[in-house]
C-alpha cells in the first residue's frame, strides 16, 4: 500500500522559506498572496496489506525519524 505523509512546521516556528516564497510571489506581481507555509511531503510504498497495521507502522516511523516533533507536526494517510 501507499502512505502519504505531510510534515509541517508547528505554528509559532519561524518558516523563512515560506516567507521568502510569499515575498517572491509578490515581486512577480501575485498580489493576492497573504501567507505561504512550506512543508514536506513524503510518499511511501509499503509491503503491507493491512491498513491498520500500515498506519501504526508509519506513525512510528514519523515519531522515530520522519518528523521532529519538537518543531514539526505530521499527518498520515494510508491508501490501498
Amino acid at each position, binding site marked *: 500500500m501507499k502512505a502519504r505523509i505531510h510534515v509541517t512546521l508547528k505554528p*509559532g*516556528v*519561524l518558516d*523563512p*522559506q515560506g516567507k*521568502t516564497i510569499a515575498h517572491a510571489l509578490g515581486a512577480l506581481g501575485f498580489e493576492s498572496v497573504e501567507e505561504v507555509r512550506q512543508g*514536506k511531503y513524503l510518499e511511501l510504498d509499503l509491503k503491507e496489506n493491512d491498513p491498520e497495521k500500515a498506519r501504526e507502522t508509519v506513525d512510528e516511523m514519523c515519531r*522515530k*525519524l*520522519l518528523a*521532529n516533533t*519538537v*518543531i514539526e507536526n505530521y499527518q498520515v494517510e494510508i491508501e490501498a
Partner: protein
Amino acid sequence: MQTAVIRFPGTNRENDVVMALQRATGRPPRIIWHKDASLPEVDLIVLPGGFSYGDHLRAGAMAAHSPVMKEVVRQAERGVAILGICNGFQILTEAGLLPGALLRNAGLKFVCRDVHLRIETSGSVFTEGYNAGQLIRVPVAHHDGCYYADDELLGRLRDEDRIAFRYCSNGGGVDERSNPNGSRDEIAGILSASRRILGMMPHPENATEPLQGSTDGCGLFDGLTRALH
C-alpha cells in the same frame, strides 16, 4: 587525554577536528566508524561537522539513529564529555542529548564566514579555557544553524547558565545584525543540564593556527585538555 571522533557517511570535517585535537592533546584521536557498536574508553567524544546522510530529511536526523549513537548516549550517561560541532550539534539535538532544534538559516543560504562569539560562561570543561565575557573570532559554515527553543526552554537555558556562546559584533555587542542564521537569542552553542555535553554551530577547529587567520579556537581545545587529562 584520549579522544574519539565519530565518522558518519557524509561527515566531512573530521580531519579539521583531528588536527586541532592532535595539536592540543599531543595524540591522534581514535576515528570511530558509525557502524561500530562499541566505543573505546575515552575522555572526550567529538561529533564533527559535515553532511551526514547528505543532510537529507533534516540535518542530523539519520545519524542520530545510527548504531554508534546508542553507545554515545551510554557514554554520556557515564559523564564522558561530548562535543558536537555544526552537524554534530544537529545530531545531538536530533538524538535528544541536547534540547531544541536547528532550522534552516533565516537567510536561507549557506553561510561561511568569520563571526565573533561572546563566551557566556566559563563554567564547563569546554569553556573553562576562556573567561566569561571574552570575545573570540571563529568561522561558521552551515545551512541549518538557526537554533530554535520555545520560551520555556529558552528561560531554562538562561536560568541554568547553559548558553555557552552568543553571536556578537566585533565590539562585543550581542545583537541581531551579528547573528548569521537567525538563532533565537543569538545562541551559538549550548550545554546539557549535566554541563558535560556542548553543541555549537561555529568551528573552533578552523581557528587554531596563525595561518588560518585566528587562533581563538585553541582556548576550547586547550581548556578541554587541561580539564580532562
